[in-house]
């Protein structure tokens, strides 16, 4: 477990340092994800790798890690009530529009590319 977590933190640190050096507009952990993906690929890591087991353990409880930020909603309940209409409409409307845009664009492009490839 500790060895696996060490790998995860090392990848995150590499990501954070790369982001700061290049001023890239991406979060460090996302670059760390790319670094770990490449490492796993190059080393052909299997299910028994320590980092794989540690990662599965953390991901299983991903929702827990959002709780501290989420509890902040109690502070904003007053503000949310005052602006309830624009907040609810924009949040739900834009969430739905984004979901449909990505889902449909992906499916249409897949179909388009598949039909072009099979011709």
């Amino acid at each position, binding site marked *: 477990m500790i060895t696996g977590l060490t790998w995860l933190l090392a990848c*995150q640190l590499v990501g954070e340092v790369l982001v700061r050096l290049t001023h890239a507009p991406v979060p460090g952990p996302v670059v760390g*994800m790319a670094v770990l993906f490449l490492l*796993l690929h190059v080393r052909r890591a299997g299910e028994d790798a320590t980092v794989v087991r540690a990662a599965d353990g953390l*991901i299983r409880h*991903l929702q827990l*890690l959002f709780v501290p930020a989420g*509890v902040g909603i109690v502070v904003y309940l007053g503000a949310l009530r005052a602006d309830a209409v*624009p907040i609810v409409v924009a*949040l739900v409307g834009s969430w739905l529009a984004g979901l449909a*845009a990505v889902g449909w664009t992906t499916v249409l492009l897949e179909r388009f590319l598949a039909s072009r490839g099979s011709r």
Partner: protein
Amino acid sequence: MRDTWDWMVHSPVFLVLLTLVGYRLGRELRDRTGGHPLAQPVLVAIILIGTTLSLAHVDYADYRAGTELIAFWLGPATVALAVPLHRQARRLRGFVVPMLMAVPVGAVVSIATSILLVRICGGDELLARTMAPKAATTPVSIALSEGIGGLPPMTAVLTIVAGILGAVAGPAVLTLLRVRDRRARGLALGAVSHGIGTSRALVEDETEGAFSGLSMGLTALATSILLPLLVAVLL
């Protein structure tokens, strides 16, 4: 007695314990209800903890500082999403082009509709700036909100609510929209509901979860690049 009580409710030991217990009860409720979509552990935990804090008169700022230990692991957990992706790596073949086009399209739609809908419904410019980055995952949306002059802590809350919306309703809405391909479903969920949507996607299907995690990363990148441009044009 009073001093000890005050010390206790503000100590990280109590606050971290409270968080773990709230989350544990949330998981219990999910299992008891046979995985009812509304019984998302994060949602149940937020309600239980929020209620407890207001009853015990603990400020949110104190709670947040005391639970830094838990929030810290969000970074390594994001890195960890490389693992499900690694398992699904061969399914990336033939999918790279649709993915790299759909994610920026999604980011533009998310940002533009956030800003326009807030303005149409009578919200002020500050609210529009606070709402605009909400599709990107929390650490990113907070930083972006600060950069464009929104209210970062409120952006964090809106981001979490968008995530919970995805965990609760995402799979059902995607089915209604007739998006059946596992990869496309994951991509869509990750693009609007980041890590919280990803955690639900992982429960649904490994492929869906892997692509949701990937989409979360790509959306963070696309939103970071596109947000300042769209804000300049629309506000």
